[in-house]
């Protein structure tokens, strides 16, 4: 009886020890809460492409800490209901995640990640959204005002004849805030800001909006609306005799494939700002551009296409530099290690340039103003 009891005790201790030290997984699975169906499926597709491209490169170079990485697509369909349920499922045993995308799903799902203490990188939203969920996410952009006011001032200063500017603004998430930052930049450049023209999200005809904007007799126009709407507004402006194409500025979120397919050559000469520069030559960026253009009928990579590419590399750095093992028994502690590392990354080697993070906010990222020529972007200036 005593022998049996002893055996049971030994067995129990062995099981307990085994339970405490579950083996680390053989692969790094990184779920990506993305919108692969629904209204922004085309954007979700190239965000996913960027993350997959990074994983392919990392695996070819030996993986993360010697183990392969796999991006697991989790489609939320831009539906907060699905986003929150999927996030609730992921936080059980996920080390770190990517997304969610976009803002309505971020607001529904990120509180769950925060409560569970799981880092998830929301690399497409503005600081004003991301900072509500610090330290369990980071912002990919500095504050909207700090980043956009100097950019728009630099654009305005190119044209001494530009005295009055009107903005087309669509009321979606951070966009009105971006329009406010544009106004601040215009004021700094000594340009009069005219009353904005609101673009309905489901606008079918754009002529009345253009007539309203032109009635204010602007010298320049800024577009803060969906890519397709921006393209249709530019076409409508041209059909009504607008000649000064470089006095048109499209904001970064309009830099998506449907802008160019809808706008075609009518966009020639208009300017656009964003955060990636096709003219920079680094080995990884060259590879990325070529691979993207090969798989997308020669289209240039859109503005946000590199965000999740860089995010995967940032996770790689976090895991390798903090010694994270991925062991389920250390999940809580290792999540914290990654979150803390991401908040204050120093000298991160991005695909185009290096940057630092300070308390979750990037400190020295450039932005670019381009001129559109035949569907391609030609650099006008870099603004830091």
């Amino acid at each position, binding site marked *: 009886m005593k022998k049996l009891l002893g055996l049971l005790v030994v067995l129990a201790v062995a099981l307990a020890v085994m339970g405490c030290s579950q083996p680390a997984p053989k692969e790094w699975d990184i779920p990506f809460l993305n919108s*692969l*169906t*629904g209204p922004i499926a085309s954007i979700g597709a190239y965000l996913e492409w960027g993350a997959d491209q990074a994983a392919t490169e990392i695996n070819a170079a030996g993986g993360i800490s010697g183990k392969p990485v796999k991006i*697991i*697509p*989790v*489609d939320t*369909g831009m*539906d*907060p*209901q*699905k986003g*929150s*349920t*999927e996030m*609730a*499922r992921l*936080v*059980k045993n996920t080390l770190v995640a990517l997304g969610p995308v976009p*803002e*309505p799903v971020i*607001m*529904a799902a990120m*509180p*769950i990640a925060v*409560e*569970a203490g799981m880092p998830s990188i929301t690399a497409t939203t503005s600081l*004003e*959204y991301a900072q*509500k969920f610090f330290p369990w996410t980071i912002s990919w952009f500095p504050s909207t005002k700090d980043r956009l006011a100097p950019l728009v001032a630099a654009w305005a200063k190119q044209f001494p004849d530009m005295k009055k500017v009107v903005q087309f603004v669509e*009321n*979606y*998430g*951070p*966009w*009105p*805030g971006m329009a406010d930052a544009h106004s601040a930049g215009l004021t700094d450049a000594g340009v009069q800001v005219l009353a904005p023209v609101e673009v309905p999200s489901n606008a079918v005809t754009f002529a009345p909006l253009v007539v309203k904007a032109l009635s204010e007799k602007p010298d320049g126009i800024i577009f803060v609306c969906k890519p397709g709407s921006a393209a249709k507004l530019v076409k409508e402006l041209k059909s009504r005799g607008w000649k000064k194409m470089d006095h048109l500025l499209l904001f970064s979120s309009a830099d998506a494939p449907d802008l160019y397919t809808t706008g075609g050559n009518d966009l020639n000469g208009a300017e656009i700002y964003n955060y990636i520069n096709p003219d920079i030559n680094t080995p990884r960026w060259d590879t990325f551009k070529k691979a993207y253009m090969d798989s997308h009928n020669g289209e240039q990579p859109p503005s946000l296409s590199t965000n999740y590419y860089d995010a995967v590399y940032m996770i790689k750095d976090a895991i390798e530099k903090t010694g994270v093992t991925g062991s389920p028994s250390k999940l809580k502690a290792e999540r914290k290690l990654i979150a803390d590392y991401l908040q204050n990354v120093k000298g991160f080697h991005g695909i185009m340039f290096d940057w630092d993070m300070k308390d979750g906010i990037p400190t020295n990222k450039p932005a670019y103003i381009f001129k559109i020529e035949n569907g391609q972007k030609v650099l006008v200036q870099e603004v830091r």
Partner: protein
Amino acid sequence: MPLELYYFLSITAVNILLSWAMYLPYRVAHLHFITVANMAISGYSAGWLVMTLHVPFGWALLVGFALGGGIGYLVSLFIGDAPTFAVVIVGFTFIFITRTVIENLNAVGGTMGMFGLPDIGGNPDAHRWIIMAILAGLLLLVGFLLHRFDHSRLGRAASAVFVDKDLAASLGVDIRRLGMLLQTVSCTIAGGTGVLYGFIYRSLHVDFFTFELVGIAMTIVFVGGYATPWGTVVLAPILYGVPLLLPPAVQEWRIVLYGAALVLVLVLKPEGFITRRFVVSLESFLSVSRKKRNSFTREET
């Protein structure tokens, strides 16, 4: 309670309540989409009361119900006996107006939304249990009221209005007052549901209350069965839960699957899966079984 179970159950409960809020006025052939706008108005109002004026959640919830009912009543004064198409147009217009007002109201976060709604009960676990308890209580209460309504004189009057308004009027049914009553109750349910919806996410964004929500509720009501409230109870968890269990490659096609299901049901079974005849048969079957069991027990004793 496991997190994923909580979100599954709570969001399913919200979908059932919203679908019931649409089912009720549809008993007199009113597709009352204003319910979604009422969810937003009450949700944001309660959020503002709790966040800005520090009103306790319970009071904010009651205000949400009252606001929903009040708006529903005011609107029903004009469309209580309107034709289906007019009610649909008013609903869509109301959603547009509500969205525009919210987007331009800085007090509730405008287009950015409202962040950080507090945990009821002081911590996340208590919050979840309280939300689940309220939702369960509300489901039982509304379900009971709907059941009673369907078996009452009012329910039979609503059925008559659904089939033929003139016939119903000739039988003495006050069509306008009945429509007003159903619209007001529907909006009251939607108002409270909107508050709970916001507090499930602990944030509010104008895109939580879109036409997609109308689509979800419509699919639940019409595929589940628009002639009884029980179709909603069966279909809401299936429609929301099954896609979560599907492999990712199939999940991407869920909207197509919803659409196909809706088309198939409308063609093959226009009354939906759970029909009134089915419910009546089930009720009589259960009643016969109960009688048999009772008589058997009596004989034994």
